[in-house]
């Protein structure tokens, strides 16, 4: 009898299937198990706690937790309609209350969401409908709401200070996966399948994101086959490691133009940079194709004068940047910048040699050396000042430079009045922005964009902004680049958007082993 019972028990026991895990390598390091407070965890938790909105592969805003939204004619009231049939990983349904609580909580507790606290005056919930009322017109809300993860009210309302709350997990989530564990000493976060998820069923049981402190080790992890893909916010897989990875024969490459770019910014408050003719001459001195070849190893292209890359919604084609040192010299001469003493360097209006102070962050030393070489060839002296990030922030905020070399991020391109205006509008401050343009024409253009949600008008303003950049060159784009995402050949279904790359719900529910 005992033997029979044992045999029956063995037969009835389910065979333990091996857990299918999607492995992602990154160099975005989680520094603290603070679900909201940690910057990187805040990026990862979009998987488990979807924001209201997301971007599609063409850069258009579409619903994620929200189905759709409506905006009042004065742009002060935004109503989001939450999708039906969504459940938290503890089985509780997702409600409008969760959304209202989350957005209010961000405004109150999270430093970088302080604008919500300052402008949100009322939140009304009616079934699956949540209406936010602001004390002034707000036109970018749909975009802003691509970055705020929605949290379950029944869990988080008892947390006194959500921004400082730390736990290694699990955290209740409403996405296809919930965050199961954050292990700083193992260097990974593990997401597990949400048992109450009603959307397209993921092919994987878990998603494991492992971070590396250096790109070389991350690249080797991929080449060894230990990882299925690589993701880093606003960055590509290291271009120098692509060929080596391709030769392993295990990986395919997803190449997508990105809205982030590298550019030369000018201190428009100082001569001769305040002179458009001088900036125009500089624009002809730069060998863009060489820049593309060296900085992106060919995974990029020569930019246009309109600054905005084609990956952005609203892009228009403007004149391509042109490398022509002779034109640059002629333009300098006709603008009055001549080398009268024959020492190879042109003089400014004060009769002194023009030697520009090129302020850069350490990461851009290679590009800076090239720029120095190009400008010296046309008779503009350059001295490179390479500093670490914090010193750069301080020096550029006090306008203690002539030119600088920096980059934009996909989010940065969209902030403020969209189309990189956040980097130039003199009324803004912030770590990465230059705030150098105080031309009333440009400021009015920004205000116009900020005052409307009308897509026809916005498209027209997008054209105006790009034409403004092309005519006035407040910044010179050095190269547009493509983001490279390697993925295991044995896995199909990857989806990439311009904001967060492959880190999106389409990818996580769409990837599956090749049949």
């Amino acid at each position, binding site marked *: 009898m005992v033997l029979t019972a044992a045999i029956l028990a063995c037969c009835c026991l389910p065979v333990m299937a091996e857990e299918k895990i999607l492995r992602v390598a990154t160099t975005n390091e989680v520094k603290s198990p603070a679900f909201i*407070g940690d910057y990187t965890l805040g990026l990862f938790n979009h998987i488990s706690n979807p924001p209201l909105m997301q971007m599609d592969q063409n850069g258009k805003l579409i619903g994620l937790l929200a189905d759709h939204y409506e905006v009042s004619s004065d742009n002060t009231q935004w109503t989001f309609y939450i999708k039906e049939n969504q459940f938290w990983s503890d089985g509780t349904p997702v409600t409008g209350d969760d959304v209202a609580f989350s957005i209010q909580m961000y405004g109150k507790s999270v*430093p970088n969401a302080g*604008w919500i606290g*300052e402008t949100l005056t009322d939140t009304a919930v009616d079934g699956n409908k949540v209406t936010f009322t602001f004390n002034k017109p707000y036109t970018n809300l749909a975009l802003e709401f691509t970055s705020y993860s929605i949290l379950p009210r029944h869990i988080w309302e008892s947390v006194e200070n959500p921004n400082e709350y730390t736990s290694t997990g699990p955290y209740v989530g409403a996405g296809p996966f919930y965050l199961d564990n954050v292990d700083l000493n*193992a260097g990974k976060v593990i997401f597990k399948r949400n048992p109450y998820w009603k959307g397209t069923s993921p092919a994987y049981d878990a998603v494991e994101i492992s971070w590396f402190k250096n790109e*070389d*080790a991350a690249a080797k992890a991929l080449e060894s086959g230990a990882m299925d893909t690589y993701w880093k916010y606003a960055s590509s897989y290291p271009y120098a490691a692509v060929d080596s990875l391709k030769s392993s024969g295990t990986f395919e490459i997803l190449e997508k133009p990105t809205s982030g770019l590298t550019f030369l910014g000018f201190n428009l408050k100082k001569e001769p940079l305040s002179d458009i003719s001088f900036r125009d001459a500089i624009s002809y001195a730069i060998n863009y194709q060489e820049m593309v070849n060296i900085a992106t190893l060919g995974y990029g292209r020569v930019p246009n004068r309109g600054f905005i890359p084609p990956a952005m919604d609203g892009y228009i084609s403007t004149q391509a940047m042109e490398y022509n040192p002779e034109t640059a010299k002629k333009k300098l001469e006709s603008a009055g910048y001549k080398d009268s003493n024959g020492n190879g360097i042109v003089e400014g209006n004060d009769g002194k040699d023009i030697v520009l102070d090129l302020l850069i962050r350490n990461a851009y030393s290679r590009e800076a050396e090239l720029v120095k070489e190009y400008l010296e060839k046309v008779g503009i002296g350059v001295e490179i000042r390479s500093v670490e990030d914090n010193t750069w922030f301080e020096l550029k905020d006090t306008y203690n430079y002539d030119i600088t070399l920096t980059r934009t991020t996909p989010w*940065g391109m969209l902030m403020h009045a969209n189309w990189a205006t956040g980097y130039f509008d003199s009324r803004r401050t912030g770590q990465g922005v230059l705030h150098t343009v105080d031309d009333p024409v440009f400021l009015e253009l920004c205000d116009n964009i900020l005052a409307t949600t009308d897509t026809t008008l916005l498209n027209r303003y997008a054209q105006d902004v790009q034409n403004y950049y092309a005519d006035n060159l407040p910044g010179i784009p050095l190269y547009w680049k493509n983001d490279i995402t390697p993925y295991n050949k044995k896995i199909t279904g990857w989806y990439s958007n311009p904001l967060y790359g492959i880190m999106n719900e389409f990818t996580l529910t769409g990837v599956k082993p090749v049949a």
Partner: protein
Amino acid sequence: MGASFLSFHYLIRKIFRYLFSFVIILLVVFLLPRMMPGDPIANLVGEDVYLSPQKILELRSAFGLDSPLHEQFFVYCMKLYQLDLGYSFHMHAPVSSLLIDRAAWTLLYIGIAIVCGIIIGVGPGEKAGWESEKWWAHFLSAGAVLISSTPPYLLSLIVLVIFVYHFGWFPLKGFYDTFDITSIIHHLVLPISVLTVFYASRNFLIMRGAVLSEKCQLYPQFVRSLGIPEKDILSGHIRKNAIIPLITLIALDFGFLFSGALFIEIVFSLNGMGSLIYDAILSRDYPVLTGSFLVISVFVIMANILSDILCIVLDPRTGRNE
């Protein structure tokens, strides 16, 4: 006056000097991070985020950064008196708990490497100095010079590529995959080995140099003339004198035990003290920087006191000239 009284007096004077150093250190570790360019609040908010000046002022006040520096120092000293090292803006945790967590792991991998480095480096270094004309002494010395002059980051990467990528014998990163002793050992073998090789080669070269210099003194010749065998001259007389400079250096190693080994942590993606301090510097996380520097300084002072005591024990003449 007796020799032991002189040594004791010397030690007491040293301890007073260290106490004075501690007071200076307290001021320096507080001021140094705050004198660096950059704003912790701007780092906290992020690169692409706009906050109104009013909101920034509120945040500055919330973190106690709006008061004058002398008031901030007073508050810091008061908290320190209660053993409170402050709260990290960026890591969302009390500095003391961060330090305890990171220091425990750092102690594990650096501590083992220092001990192994002593065992592997000192004995052969002594032997190579004593029998410096032998071929193996030349060979070992050349190897030690080669390792010492290799950039640590490069050597670590080479080791990673060979043993992790090509042979697949060790894991790529982290202290463990699953928190168990086997996994921890498996993960730490390579970082500890690389560090050990560095410590051992440095100890080897210093010990070899010290023995070479001691054996040319008059006292070994005198001892030899008394008919004492060669191996006893080395172990009974030369070793005691030759090891003194190394003790000071090893004491400093232990002092800096908690500063971590940044290059090892970066290559093997380890969550140790080195990367904690590095990240705190980049983000201008004042409490973490001040707390870490203070703890490291205290350990360096303690290690120096221990080294002084050890030197007095080994050579009672130490400090008599002062």
